């Protein structure tokens, strides 16, 4: 088929990938540091979206500029989700730090169910409309049929978040502490790093990026309910595994690869098998590179 169709699919896949990446970062960072798959991470994404919905509905009455509303509700959603992430770590994971990994995993699944049902009861089981906060940009007029302004905002925001995160991890003291904890938590502790603080910070950063994802994707699809975190969370988890769980560039790469696989699979073959393509690709990658595209091979596994 023609080139513009290819580009549409490419950009569509990239948008999807960006969203997956924002969620996958949380999975991969937490896994990198405490070897825990935080299944409740998708719920943090959903809570971020809900917070943004509530705040933007309130601000909507003031007649403020929609971009301003988006930024304010986005920032508040980040704080809210980060608070949830940190609290979750304190309640559900910290007491189990020395317990077998399976216990922590079950605790994570329990947390996921709790948060879903909490939002279901506290809010509503129905789908709610999310206001269209991202306006149509005038300069996109010539290519609006290929790239919508929402997609552009998603791509740009994701890129900015990635750059900030790279700087944080590579060039700050906190980042150094995180890398040290990830390499060897016990040794890091001996050298005077407060690993509890590092773990909390990891959860806060992961939750913040998930909240950004929640706000962006909700303005893209225009709807949300208490269950959106589950499917998005599973896909992001797949992306993180694909790229090599524990590796930050791997999570981003895995997310884009997953987004493109789904998009091209749908575009050139059939959307009936969208998930099938995603999982076949995952299988192929894991056969040849068991620890993911950019994952470090670990021989000391049980």
């Amino acid at each position, binding site marked *: 088929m023609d080139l513009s169709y290819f580009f*549409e*699919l490419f950009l569509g896949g990239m948008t999807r990938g960006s969203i997956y990446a924002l969620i996958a970062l949380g999975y991969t960072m937490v896994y990198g540091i405490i070897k825990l798959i935080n299944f409740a991470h998708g719920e943090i994404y959903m809570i971020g979206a809900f917070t943004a919905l509530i705040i933007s509905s309130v601000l909507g009455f003031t007649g403020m500029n929609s971009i301003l509303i988006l930024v304010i509700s986005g920032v508040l959603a980040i704080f809210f989700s980060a608070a949830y992430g940190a609290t979750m770590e304190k309640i559900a994971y910290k007491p189990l730090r020395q317990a077998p990994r399976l216990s922590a995993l079950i605790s994570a699944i329990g947390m996921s169910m709790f948060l879903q049902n909490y939002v279901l009861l506290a809010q509503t089981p129905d*789908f*709610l409309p999310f206001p269209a906060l991202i306006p149509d940009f005038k300069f996109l007029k010539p290519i609006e*049929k290929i790239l919508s302004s929402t997609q552009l905002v998603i791509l740009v925001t994701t890129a900015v978040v990635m750059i900030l995160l790279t700087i944080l991890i590579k060039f700050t003291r906190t980042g150094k502490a995180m890398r040290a904890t990830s390499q060897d938590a016990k040794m890091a502790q001996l050298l005077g790093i407060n690993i509890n603080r590092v773990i909390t910070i990891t959860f806060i950063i992961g939750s913040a990026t998930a909240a950004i994802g929640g706000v962006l994707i909700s303005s*893209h699809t225009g709807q949300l309910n208490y269950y959106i975190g589950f*499917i998005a969370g599973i896909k992001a988890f797949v992306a993180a595994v694909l790229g090599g769980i524990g590796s930050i560039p791997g999570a981003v790469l895995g997310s884009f690869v997953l987004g493109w696989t789904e998009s091209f699979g749908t575009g050139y073959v059939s*959307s009936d098998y969208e998930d099938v393509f995603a999982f076949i690709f995952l299988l192929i990658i894991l056969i040849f590179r068991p620890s993911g595209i950019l994952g470090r091979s670990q021989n000391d596994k049980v």
Partner: protein
Amino acid sequence: MKKAIIIALVLVLSVFVITGCAKKNAGPIKIGVAGPQSGDLASYGIPTAKAAQIVVDEVNAAGGVLGRQIELVVEDDVCKPEVATNTASKLVGEGVVGVIGHICSGATKAAMGTYNESKIPAISPSATNPALTQSGDYPNFFRTIASDDAQARTEVDFVLDTLGLTKIAVLHDKGDYGKGLAEFAKSFLEADSRAEVVLFEGITPGAVDYSAVINKIKSSGAQAVIFGGYHPEASKIVGQMKKRKMDVVFVSDDGVKDDTFIKVAGEYAEGVYASGPKDTAANPLAKKYEKAHQDKFGEDPGPFYQNAVAATLAMINAIKVAGSTDYDAVTNALRTSLVDTPLGKIKFDDRGDAIGVGFAMYQVQNGVYVELK
């Protein structure tokens, strides 16, 4: 002497026969009601039993039909085909002249053979499986609900005849309901020489976005999309199509003809078409029977209540018009005599589907679904 005894015997026997006949004619006319009265799906069957009771009480109070009272025989089939055959035999044994039911399509299919052998007509208020009427296997089967494919038929006719569009993309959500509907729509489109199905795809419910499918719709050159599924996916697709400034007509089903769709899709919902059951709330008979239910049971009626009222009214009317409970006369009356019911004035076509019962097209206009006449 011997002769006298024989004559006496004959006389005695003939008296028995005469009284036997007389007894049969003077007793109540028995009508069976079959459907789930217990179990998981009881809530689908009980409203039908209540509806039949309300109608029969009313008819009996007015003197019955053909000068006889009507007696209902309610039997439970738990919506299971294996139980339904026993239920049917039991009703036949009870000597019913007609059956209101069954409720579930599977149970109905299982029971129909028994009724057919015993020449008993059955009117279901709820069995929607297309084969029940279309296969021709059950000449004694009637229903007061539209079959599953009627909705797809309504949508396809609307797109081709009313809107005059020919290049059509058919999408579904891969679920039983959505995919079934989409497959019917596809087969109707393919059977029509005017139409061209440019795309037939299943989408993944709950996916974060549908941009790839939307690109595909765009490059397929479709003028209209027929979507089988529910409103969460529909509102995502409609919203994303409008954001991409695509000018494609969106037609969907009663899974989308829901106010939540309008609430969630907001301004993007405007102009969307959806099929749904014809609105009968304004029908005076529907109002009357709703009130009768309220008065008798103190609550709102359950599912298929009005369909069951219509089925019972049609059965009693057919017996009245036929002037007997003879199978041929009754089924003929069902096919020819119009009867006033909560669903409007109905009679049945040759296959047993109620004429005039079915789906209408609705369009979102200024934030509400408006029925298109």
